[in-house]
């Protein structure tokens, strides 16, 4: 599996990742550290308490890290949660709907991590 194929499998944006890191080698090096970044774990943990400040912080962190990895869809999904809890913004969806979005983000994250692990192991 090539790196480009990995990005297709995990629904990432290969071109964007290369644009950010300039070299495929560097993209590979950075995404290998992504599973240990802890951004999803922090977000899921915040989702259990549904603390608005914590939700905003962790979603914001996940959005930023994923954007820099070229995981645009994952970044956008975290961004939706982030905007929902941004201080000053009115809530537009219920906690249950948030939980559904968190599950969606978690599934996308797992698929991404699995893909990265598979790429690493070959």
């Amino acid at each position: 599996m090539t790196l480009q194929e990995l990005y297709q499998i995990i629904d990432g944006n290969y071109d964007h990742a290369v644009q950010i890191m300039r070299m495929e080698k560097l993209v590979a090096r950075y995404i290998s550290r992504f599973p240990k970044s802890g951004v999803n774990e922090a977000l899921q943990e915040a989702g259990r308490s549904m603390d608005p400040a914590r939700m905003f912080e962790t979603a914001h962190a996940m959005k930023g890290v994923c954007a820099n990895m070229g995981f645009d869809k994952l970044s956008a999904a975290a961004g939706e949660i982030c905007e929902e809890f941004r201080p000053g913004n009115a809530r537009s969806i219920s906690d249950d709907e948030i939980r559904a979005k968190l599950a969606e983000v978690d599934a996308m994250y797992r698929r991404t991590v699995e893909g990265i692990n598979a790429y690493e192991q070959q």
Partner: protein
Amino acid sequence: MIQSTAIHRRRQVLVVEDQELNRDILGMILEDDYDVLYAENGAEGVACMREHRETLSIVLLDLMMPVMNGFEVLELVREDEELRHIPIIVLTAEKKAELKALQLGAADFITKPFDMHEIILARVGRIIELSEGRRLISAAERDPLTGLYNRGFFFEYADQIRRYYRDLRMDAVVINIERFHSVNDFNGREFGDRILRRLGEEIRGCLAGTEGIACRAEADQFFLFCQCTDYRAMLDRFQQSVNEFSKRVAIRLRMGVCFGTGDRTPGMLFDRARTACNMVRGSYKGHLMIYDEEMHERELYSQRLLNDLGQAIEERQFAVYYQPKYDIQCHPPRLNSAEALVRWKHPELGLVSPGDFIPLFEKNGLIHVVDNYVWGEAASQIAEWRSKYGFTLPLSVNLSRMEVFDPTLERTLLQLLEQYKISSKDFKLEVTESAYTDDAEQLVAVIGQLREYGFEIEMDDFGSGYSSLNTISSLPIDVLKMDMKFIQNVEENSKNFRLIELILDIAGYLGVPVVAEGVQTSTQMQLLQNAGCEYVQGFYFSRPLPAEEFEKLIIKEIEAAKERKS
């Protein structure tokens, strides 16, 4: 050009970002061009800024972070004197956050994700450049001793005030310290610096909350561009502050003021204020001088004379006149010698008074130009009359204090004697009494040397200076020339006559003859003759005359001598 590695060193950048991956990606973008430091949150970032405050060029700051977020960092840095000079670029993707960060003092922002490396590097580079430029300007803008502006920036800002705030009529004020170099010499430079700092503080305090600005223009000279209704009170305030600071050493301030008008540039105003301040020098009337038009005209006139001196010498505009000195103990009085006096026939200004140009050239170190001219003319005249009439009439010329200390003086005078084949005893030198007051020791040595060559020294204006009876006895002189003030009122005031008698007694004690200057009437002449004065110079015998007119006196003297013989 000096090349310093310190100037061209790699700049240090701090990345404050809680997400390790983001931090590292940013580091990867920057590390080819910069030395990169990292911090995981705002508190760590501030600690790192403090530790590297001298070397850190810029901070890239994430806004959303645990412990201390980016906004809190910006607020803290804004209030921190030690850190506020370090520029901060915020890392954000939010428009609202950008605005808030800029309002809190952020220099710029970089959007996430970090996909535009060139833009990131360009922004970082530009902000560093701007910040260093600003720091350089800020360092150059202020005088490190007083914290006031430096001269160049001061004039730039003064000009801006004049250009953009035309309704503000700002005055130019120049302040300096009387004999500041002596204050430094006697009390040390550190003491002098403390005085300047104190004065700078007081000026800053005085101008606080006003539109006024100030600078230390040079050494002990301060310029203020301000508005004030009572400059006397302003000077008193500064003087009092300096007095409180320096109780042991007396410090005197001088102030010159030129009122602002719409049509004068700050440069012109300060030239005038400085002139006014210089007029205070040596004045016993007070230490504040307001510039007026009369002062301006006098200044222009002086400058014109200074400018025209070279051409005047070339075109021989200076004329030498001769005023006779008569031996009044002979019957009838006999022509003994004459004093060479300079007149300036300016082609446009007419006859310029020696009272105008001699002190001016003395003050500006140019009197030797005129005196050298007069000496040459006088020496040539002695030779000419000797050849024409077979009669040597000694002439006296003036020797300024500055010339006495000219190492080439002896050579110049001896060359003249050689050139015109005249004797040193026929070329007398007049030195004013006041010249003996400063550095008397060196002056006495030079005069002593000249006397050894045979030059006779006449002490000019005796009685107008401050020679004590003690010092006068040790001065090397051959003739005393009594100041004309003693003669002028001798007929009305018997005390003046007593003073004349005293001077004649002193001269008798010293064993030198006296020349009385400014004698105009026969009564004055008689009194002096009866009192035993040897020589007289003044309108009673003749006003100063051009050489051709003076010759009539010589002819008359020759004829009188013939008559005496026959």
